[in-house]
């Protein structure tokens, strides 16, 4: 209990004192994960919609695969990405290992299946409702997907936030591919792991509270933004 209080106090001191290191790694956490969430949403949301609207042979297989990939162990993803981008790996020439770019790539791989899966679930239900109308109105395939994405935007926001939540707290994959390098690839989660390892529990806890605040803040901000856009029920 004392540790937790000490952590809270430490966190407060760091935040109020505008501790430069804290702000640096917090911003890096935020920018890496937000970028990853954005990219994963741009892939996952239309993929989810596409899977809901089209019937083709491999559809069930893809959906089952997505569901399985949702539970991917981050360390394994990190390892695979590491091998692929290591100097002798197939994409080694890009020299991305131990940069924030490759951390983003690892997170995109981790959360795209989640976002696509959650989106697919919501959009499939809406498609069951809209199907006859959209067919009757001669909506093109693109128009159908557009209507479904727009009209399920609340559920899709939740899908993206679920992805964000998983990515922002993730440590295994980005530790491996990013290397937790000070002033370069260190983010909140890897810093927490490091400080815990060193026995600096108060600092680790402080960082942990900042991480929680960050996750809450992003969720509040997005929900607030989407609510002010229109005051009606959705």
């Amino acid at each position, binding site marked *: 209990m004392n540790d937790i209080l000490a952590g809270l106090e430490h966190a407060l001191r760091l935040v109020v004192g505008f501790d430069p290191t804290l702000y640096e790694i917090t911003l890096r956490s935020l920018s890496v994960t937000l970028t990853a969430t954005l990219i994963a949403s741009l892939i996952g949301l239309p993929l989810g919609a596409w899977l809901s609207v089209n019937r083709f042979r491999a559809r069930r297989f893809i959906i089952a695969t997505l569901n399985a990939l949702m539970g991917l162990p981050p360390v394994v993803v990190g390892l695979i990405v590491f091998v692929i981008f290591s100097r002798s790996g197939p994409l080694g020439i890009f020299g991305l290992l131990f940069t924030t770019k490759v951390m983003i790539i690892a997170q995109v791989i981790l959360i795209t299946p989640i976002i696509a899966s959650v989106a697919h679930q919501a959009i499939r239900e809406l498609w069951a409702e809209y199907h006859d109308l959209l067919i009757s109105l*001669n909506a093109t395939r693109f128009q159908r997907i557009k209507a479904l994405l727009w009209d399920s935007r609340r559920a899709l926001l939740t899908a993206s936030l679920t992805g964000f939540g998983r990515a922002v707290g993730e440590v295994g994959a980005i530790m491996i591919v990013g290397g937790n390098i000070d002033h370069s690839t260190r983010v909140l989660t890897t810093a927490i792991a490091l400080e815990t390892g060193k026995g600096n529990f108060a600092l680790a806890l402080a960082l942990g509270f900042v991480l929680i605040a960050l996750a809450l803040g992003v969720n509040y901000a997005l929900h607030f933004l989407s609510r002010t856009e229109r005051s*009606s*029920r959705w």
Partner: protein
Amino acid sequence: MVAPLLPLSVRDAEVWRGPTRILGPVSLDLGETGITIVLGPNGGGKTTLLRTLHGLERMRRGSLKWSCSREEALKRQAFVFQQPVIMRRSVVESIAYPLLLDRVPKRDALARAAEIAGNVGLAKHLELPAQVLSGGEKQKMALARALIRRPDLLFLDEPCASLDGESTHEIEEILQRAKADGTRIVMSTHSVGQARRMADQILFIHQGQILEAGPADAFLAGPQTLEARAHINGDLLS
């Protein structure tokens, strides 16, 4: 001058659900003008017939020939479903939606939607989420959405089933106006009274078969089949 889509000629059309034939074989011709009422008891196949004509049901057998290409024909018709499909949008946006699909500028589409909403008595509800409308109001909204493209052919599946007398009257007037403007109407109902008021032609459908087809006056004055007579009498009694 675009090619007319009617007459429509249907020959031996059958719709199956797994091992069950739920419609047909039916053959019918749909002429160029007027209001055709599809009359019949619950489960008779009215919905299935309308959906088949509109291209929403796959036929296992038979043929369906429009006077123009199928794609062209489908573009120029609209359908009001028995259970209105409610989009997660405001009333005015829902009604405008078909125009947005046609790439009409949003302002124009919304203005036109507001006008049509006024015609069906929804002027006060334009900005409400469509989902909060009452059952009857949802029906009217669906009708407005179907009318906004000025279809040449309009299918309505029991559009007045959940409407009170006054609303039914309003809808019937709107449909008569559409008919006067040249819209061909095919509408199902189980109400003989509505058939009496609206029909130029009648199709009586029972257990997936068209038992009678012809001018409304003759049918209502003297139905030929026992089933039709029973249906008309039953409706009068209730």
